[in-house]
C-alpha cells in the first residue's frame, strides 16, 4: 500500500518538476519600462531593486548621462540617466520616475527610467534577434520580444553596466 502511495507521489512530483522545468526553459521573465516613447525591458533576475528617486551627488569628469552616485543603504552606486544615454533630452523627474538598480555579477548601477510598465513573461520562441543593421557586439539590444499588441526591446544588462567612456 505504502509503496503504491510512494510511487504515486513520486510520479506526481516528477510531473510537477517537469512542468516547472519546461516553464523555465521556454520563457523569460522581464520587467518592462518606458524611456521616451519606447518600451524596453531587462531580465527580472538582473534587477536588484526598484526605488523612487532620491538625491545623488555629481561626479566630475563623467559624461552627462552619468548623473553621479547615490547612497543605497550604505553602498555607493552610480546613477545613469537612460534618456541621456539613449540620446534623448533629459526630462524633469515626475511621480512615475524610478531608479532601477541592475546588477550583473559584481557590477551594480542605478538607471533612471521614465516609468515602469509591468513584469512580463515572454516565450523564448517569441523573441526575435536584434535588427540586422546593428553591430552584434556593439548593440545594447539583446533581442525583440513580440507580444500580441506590441513589441518590446530587450536590453543587455551587461552592456548597460559596461563603462564606455
Amino acid at each position, binding site marked *: 500500500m505504502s509503496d503504491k502511495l510512494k510511487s504515486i507521489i513520486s510520479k506526481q512530483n516528477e510531473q510537477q518538476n517537469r512542468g516547472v522545468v519546461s516553464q523555465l526553459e521556454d520563457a523569460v521573465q522581464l520587467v518592462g519600462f518606458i524611456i521616451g516613447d519606447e518600451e524596453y525591458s531587462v531580465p527580472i533576475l538582473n534587477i536588484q531593486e526598484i526605488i523612487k*528617486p532620491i*538625491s*545623488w*551627488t*555629481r*561626479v*566630475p*569628469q*563623467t559624461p552627462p548621462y*552619468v548623473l*553621479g*552616485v*547615490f*547612497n543605497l543603504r*550604505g*553602498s*555607493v*552606486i*552610480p546613477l545613469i540617466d537612460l534618456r541621456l544615454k539613449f540620446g534623448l533630452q533629459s526630462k*524633469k*523627474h515626475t511621480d512615475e520616475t524610478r531608479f532601477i538598480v541592475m546588477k550583473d555579477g*559584481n*557590477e*551594480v*548601477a542605478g538607471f533612471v527610467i521614465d516609468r515602469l510598465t509591468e513584469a512580463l513573461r515572454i516565450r523564448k520562441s517569441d523573441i526575435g534577434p536584434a535588427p540586422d543593421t546593428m553591430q552584434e557586439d556593439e548593440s545594447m539590444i539583446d533581442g525583440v520580444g513580440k507580444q500580441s499588441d506590441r513589441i518590446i526591446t530587450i536590453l543587455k544588462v551587461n552592456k548597460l*553596466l559596461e*563603462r564606455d567612456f
Partner: protein
Amino acid sequence: MDEFQEILQDFLIESFELLEQLDQDLVELETNPQDLELLNRIFRVAHTVKGASSFLNFDVLTHLTHHMEDILNKARHGDLVLTPDVMDVVLESIDLMKELLNTIRDTGVDAGVDVSACVMKLDAKSNGTAMPTDVSMNEVEVEPEMVEEDEEEEEIAASSSDEPNYESMSDAEVEAEIERLLAQRQEEDQRKRKAKQAAGEVVPHIPDVQEEEVPKAAPVSSANVVVAKQPQPMPKKSFDEPSEDAKAAAPAKANATAVEQTIRVDVKRLDHLMNLIGELVLAKNRLIKINVDVEERYEGEEFLEELNQVVSIVSLVTTDLQIAVMKTRMLPIGKVFNKFPRMIRDLSRELNKKIDLEIYGEETELDKSIVEEIGDPLVHIIRNSCDHGIEAIADRIAQGKSETGRIVLKAYNEGNHIVVQIDDDGKGLDPVMLKNKSLEKGVITEKEADSMTDKEAYALIFRPGFSTAAQVTSVSGRGVGMDVVKTNIEKLNGIIDIDSEVGRGTSIKLKIPLTLAIIQALLVGVQEEYYAIPLASVLETVRISKDEIYTVDNRSVMRLRNDVLSLVHIGDIFEVERIIDAAEHAYVVVLGLAESKLGLIVDSLVGQEEIVIKSLGEYLKGMEGIAGATIRGDGGVTLIVDVAALMQMAKGVKAKPMIESKATSGVKEKNKASDYHVMIVDDSKTDRIIMRKSLEGLGITLTEAADGQEALNILKQGDATFDAMLIDIEMPRMDGYTLANEIKKYNKYKNLPLIAVTSRSSKSDRMRGVESGMVEYITKPYSSDYLASVVQRNIKFKAELA
C-alpha cells in the same frame, strides 16, 4: 586531499615565519659566530623544514635542507668555522629555500628550481674545512628519515654515556628501553612546564624536542660538554645550558623567542569586521547630526539630556571599538625591518663598503596593508643610501670619518601618523649638483632650476629618469627606484621629507597615516557641492583676501610666509559651475603629499569628520581626482579627493580670473509678465488653488510643489529660475522651516525671497520664520489682493507688464 592541503598550508605558514627570523639570526651569527643559541635556532629551522618537506614529499626541498642541516650541524659542533665565505653559501641556500617555498605556495610542487649547484657548494664547504669525524659521518648516514634518525640518535646519545650497551639487546628490549626513556622525558618535560606555568610564564611550544638530542651525538670535544655529564637525556636542560655559555646575547634572546599567545585569523574576517565598524561609524555620524537637529528643535526639554548621554556613549564606544579593531590589523613594522640587516650585509660586501645598520622602534605598529606597501620604498631608499650615500672606505678615511658607514632606520608614532626615518652619515645631497644633473637629463628647465629652493632640489631625486650615479650598477642607477618610493608613499597618502647636508649625511622621513579604511577628513564646500580631503594630506588652512592672489606665468600663486605656493581652484578641477563668487575672502587648503605642495582654493571650510572610504564601484572606478566616496551623516554621498591625482591635474589648469561669472549670473531682463516665475509650496491642493487664483491675474508663471522635498528637487534641477517662493509651514516629508533652511544653503538662492503662508500665527512661529530666512509672513486666511501685492513687491514686479 583537503587534509593534505590543510597540512600544506600550515607547513607554508610555519616555514615562512621561521625564515623571517632566520635572516636576522644568520647575519647576527656572522658577527657573533660563537653564539650557540643562535646556531641551534638556525639549525632547527633547517631541520624542521627538512622534516616536514620529506613528509610532504618535496624531494628537492628535502635534498637542499638536508645539506644545509649538515653544514650547520658541523658549525654547531665546532667542526667548521663560519667564515663570511661559508655564510655566503649558507645564505644562498636559504634564498633557494625561500624560492622553493614560494614555488610550492604558487604551484603546489617544488620543481623548477635547480639546487644542485648550491648543494655542491654546501658540500664543498662542509667537507673542505672540516675533516668528517666518525660521528658526523654516522649522522649523515642515518638521517634520511626523521623519526628513525631521532631514535638512532638517541641510541648513539645513550651509548656515548654510561648506559647499558644497546647493541647486545634484542629488538624488543630496545623498544622497551625507548619507551622507558620517552616516558621519563615526558614526565620531566611536564614537570618543567608546570613549574614554568606556576611562575606565570608562557611556555613556548617546542615542536621538536627530540632535536635536542642531536648535540649529544657530538664528540666530547664539542661545546656541549655539559651533556656528557648528564647521563639521562634531558632535552630541556640541554636547551637551556648552552645559552648560559653564550653569555651576553642570551638573556635578551630568550625573551625574544617567548611565543606570544595568539590565534591566526583570516584577514578576510578582519576586513569584514572593519567594514561593519565602518558602517557603525557612519551611523554614529548620522546619530550625532540628528541629535544636534533635535537639540535645536526641542531646546530645554528634559529628555534631551538623556538622549545626549546615549549619543555620547554610543559615539565613545564606537570610537573605542574602531580603535580596537584597527589594532587587530596592526603589525609591528619589525616585520619589514627584519629583512634589512641581511640586505645591508649583502650590499656592503657587494659594494666593498663597511656599513652598520641600526634599527630603532621596530615594535611600532602599522596597519597590515600599509606594512605590505612600505617594504618596497624602504628597500629602494636603503639601497640608495648604501650606494650613493655612504662613501667608499678610502673616501671616508680621507674625510676623517670612521671607515664604517652608519645607516639608522627608525620608526615612531607622531599623532595619527607613523614616521619612518632613514638617516645615513654619507656624503649628503648637493643641491647644485642635483640641479645640474637634472638640467643635463632634461628633467627640469633652466628657469625652474633657478627658482628652486634646496628642499625642492632634493625632491628632484624622486623624478622618474633621474639618477646621480655615473654608472648603472646592479644596485642602483636606473633612475626608477626613487620614483617607486614616491608612487608608493603617495598611494598611502604619505608625506616625504628630505633633509641633507653635504658631507654630513641625508635624512629621509616618511610620514604615513596609521590606517587606510577609516580616515579623518577635512570637508570643504564649493558652490553647492562638498568634497572630503584626507586630513593626512592637509598641512594647514589659511584665509586670504582675493588681492593676495597673484598671477605668474598664467598660474595663480600666493605668498605663504617665505614660500610661493601655487594655487588652483577646486571648482576648476572638478568642473563646478561657478555662479556667484562674491565673497571677499577665499579659503586656501594647503595640501602636502610626498614632497610637493599645492594650495587648493575652496569656497568654505565645513569641518573635520571621520569618514569611511567606499569605492565608487566598477563602473566609476579610477575617475581622475576622486579617491572614493563616503556617506555623510545626512545620508548623502560625498566624494573624497585623491590628492596625488589632484596635484597632477592642477598642473594643467590655467589661472582664471576669480570674479568672472558675476555678469552672466546677473538677473535676466524681464520683458513680459510671464518672465516672472513663482513657486507655490503647499501640501493642500485647495490652498494651492487659492494662491494660484490670487496670482493668476498678474499673468506670471506659477509652479506648484506639494511639499518641501519636492520643492527642493525642483530647485535643484534648475530648469527654471524662480523670483519668489510661497511656502506653507506645515507639510509632510519636509516642513517649511527646513525647506527655507535648505534653500538658504545654496549660494545662488541666498537672495530668493521666501514668503511664508501659514495658519500658524504665534509670535514664536514668526520668529522661527525669520530665523530660517523668510522675508514675509502671511497668515491664513488672507485676501487675494493682499497676497498678490506682497508677491508683486517681492519680485519687484513692473506693473506695466501686466
